[in-house]
């Protein structure tokens, strides 16, 4: 029997457009494994982050750093009410950053500065602040980030940071044998198809995750080709490639065999690599999924959009391989997934598409008639299950190997119980957690 839906869910067959839910009040589910701008900024080796904002806004970022055990790479400048009324925000910003840098035991090679919505609304000339800082600290690269969540329609802070964090890469001679992966929180898996394709042609794949020092990170600029796989990272990767005069390939993580094959053919064609046997790769995925299906049995599944940017594609893959996918948690449809929504409308009309932040969900029952298997932390919380795949933002998955790995993770989740209360509240899955 179909579950009765609240006002924040709709069945796939009843959708008429990708705009599933209107903007309303929002709450925040206690699943925090996705990375925020502090986690992302910490990827730049030896960089120091400085936030300039009001006390309440500071709290989330300063404790993110503390929970990572990275307080020594984080400092803050607190804005007061009188800075706004007296017009001293620019002065406090400049003097505060200067003060932090003078107090640090050693001057870092790179400082990522985060002004906020307040600077934006007051028209604080941040360009002037940076020019002054660059004059006073010529050996420091100042990265111009923002923490301005109010700018939803222009550029969200996460996406902007994934661009500006690569601004210190300077023009240099290209190394055509080097491919650099940009814009993702997680490094691609060791067995990922892309590494294999490149290795077969004698090329290397690197990313910021491989760099222990700032100089090594700056060395990424030598890449002959940049690739990005995470939607919010593609803008920054494209901008970096254009600035350095390099090739950029956007190869989003996908669960469609056809799309994956097309991406891999594109890589081989653009880089002159041998084309692999795709039939074997497809068959290996089918086998992994069949094994997972057997492990899962008839347990119903829920998928969430924070687990992977392609939740509908993942749901479709699982449905096509005999899994009982009942719920997908997503607040908006990724524009790359409109075809998947259309497919679900026709082939899986009873699947529930649910928001994750709308008010009635705060009090919605978080228990199901029978225990589900969830892919993603929010799906685990909303369905109250202890059987879940603990993954955020696509993890390290990519290509046919990514499909196989997802199948393995699903089978593993079926066979083990996890303590959601302990695991999903931790911030930045994959980062150190001191809590």
């Amino acid at each position, binding site marked *: 029997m179909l579950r009765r839906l609240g006002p924040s869910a709709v069945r796939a067959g009843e959708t008429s457009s990708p705009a599933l839910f209107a903007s*309303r009040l929002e709450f*925040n589910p206690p699943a925090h494994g996705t990375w925020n701008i502090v986690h992302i900024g910490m990827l730049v080796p030896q960089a120091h982050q400085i936030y300039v904002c*009001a*006390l309440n806004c500071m709290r989330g970022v300063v*404790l993110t750093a503390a929970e990572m055990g990275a307080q020594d790479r984080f400092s803050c400048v607190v804005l007061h009410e009188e800075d706004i009324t007296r017009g001293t925000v620019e002065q406090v910003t400049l003097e505060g950053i200067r003060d932090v840098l003078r107090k640090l035991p050693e001057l870092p090679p790179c400082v990522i500065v985060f002004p906020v919505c307040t600077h934006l609304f*007051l028209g604080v000339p941040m360009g002037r602040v940076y020019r002054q800082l660059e004059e006073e600290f010529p050996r420091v690269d100042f990265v111009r980030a923002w923490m301005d969540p109010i*700018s939803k329609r222009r550029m969200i802070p996460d996406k902007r940071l994934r661009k500006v964090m690569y601004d210190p890469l300077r023009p240099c001679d290209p190394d055509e044998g080097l491919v650099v992966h940009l814009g993702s929180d997680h490094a691609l898996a060791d067995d990922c198809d892309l590494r294999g394709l490149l290795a077969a042609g004698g090329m290397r794949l690197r990313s910021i995750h491989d760099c222990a020092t700032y100089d090594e990170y700056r060395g990424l600029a030598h890449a002959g080709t940049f690739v990005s796989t995470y939607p919010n990272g593609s803008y920054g990767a494209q901008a970096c490639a254009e600035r350095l005069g390099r090739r950029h390939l956007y190869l989003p993580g996908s669960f469609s065999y056809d799309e994956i094959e097309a991406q891999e053919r594109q890589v081989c064609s653009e880089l002159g690599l041998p084309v692999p046997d795709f039939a074997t790769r497809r068959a290996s995925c089918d086998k992994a999924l069949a094994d997972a299906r057997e492990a899962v049995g008839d347990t119903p599944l829920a998928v969430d959009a924070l687990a992977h940017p392609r939740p509908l594609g993942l749901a479709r893959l699982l449905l096509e391989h005999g899994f009982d996918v009942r719920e997908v948690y997503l607040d908006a449809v990724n524009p790359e997934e409109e075809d998947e929504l259309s497919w679900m409308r026709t082939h899986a009309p009873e699947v529930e598409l649910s928001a994750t932040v709308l008010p009635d969900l705060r009090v919605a029952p978080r228990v199901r008639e029978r225990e589900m298997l969830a892919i993603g932390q929010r799906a685990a919380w909303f369905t109250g299950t202890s059987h879940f795949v603990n993954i955020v933002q696509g993890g390290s998955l990519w290509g046919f190997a990514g499909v196989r790995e997802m199948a393995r993770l699903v089978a593993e989740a079926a066979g083990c119980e996890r303590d959601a209360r302990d695991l999903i509240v931790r911030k930045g899955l994959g980062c150190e957690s001191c809590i």
Partner: protein
Amino acid sequence: MRRTNRIIPTYTGDVSGACSALFELGGMVVIHDPSGCNSTYNTHDETRWYDHDSLIFITGLTERDAILGNDDKLVDDVVEAARQLRPRFIALCNSPIPFISGTDFAAICRLVERACGIPCFYVRTNGMHDYVTGAGNAWVALARRFVRPGARCEGTANILGATPLDLGVAGSEVPLRAFVGEAGFHTLSCWAMGSTLDDLSRAAEAQVSLVISASGLSVARWLYEQAGIPYVVGFPVAGFAPMLADSLRRAARTGRCLWPATVGHGGPGEVCCAFVGEPVLSASLAAAAEREMGLAARVVCPLEVPDELVGAVDRCVEGEEGVEEALRGVRTVVADELYAPIVGEGVRHVALPHQAFSGRNGWRTAVDPTTLDIRKLLA
């Protein structure tokens, strides 16, 4: 420069303080904010979020709405949620951008209340003050709407200032009630853990109020001004609790407010010990140290608190630099673990977790402050 923290965190902000203060009362708190305020609060400042479905939301303010003033959307969204969820009250909180643009919250509260018939009030916040201010303002706003005049109920007391931000451990209000009971009073209301909105609405009937944290002082003053209920400031830690109980009884008898923790330390002798953090608990510990161990102690308060909570030898400071200066010359520092990087070399650091400072970092080592014994703490 006192605005900068090179390595230590900042304290919980006013918006989170307001949310924490109202969490258990069956209301709906709406923060007019683009994003972040809610996740910051529920991730770092609210120990109850995972298990208790309190209605705390943000409006998701956009740049366009902030500039063009689309207040209708704010009103409509709040009313829609209130109709769905039927809270006992609605509290609206401000954040930096609506503060800059001068959003008229009083008018918005009237519109919301008229549209849905649920009491709606504004909690004065803007994200630029600490949790003491936010919680205090929230409770005063709530008191104005819900506390009713009533006949004095002899032998009853209010406990003011209870939130997990200062108490840390769930259930800490239970021993506080026990202390009040041993002092000879029945707890009429505990603001705001373990009491209902109906309990709180009877606060004006109490004979005396016990202010256990700086957050509770504003509503204590309000009850004193509106209903003549005297208050006593202090936290019942071992070694100081008997003095505090005496003060409660004396205040009930005389109608005079008393600050036994604040005046109970700062005697002669060179200050050798500093308690850093929330001033009421810190002063109570300092008083216990002086009474029980003969130690001259100072409170170092990095929070926005009124002068009446600051003793003669205490220091109200701002930022990391202010704390560092105030700690010069002391041999023992009792402070949250995350103060460690600025405690001087050769100075003993006794770690005392404070939720409003280190958030979840201190959860595993959190202690119920009602169990603190100064001799064991400084042993």
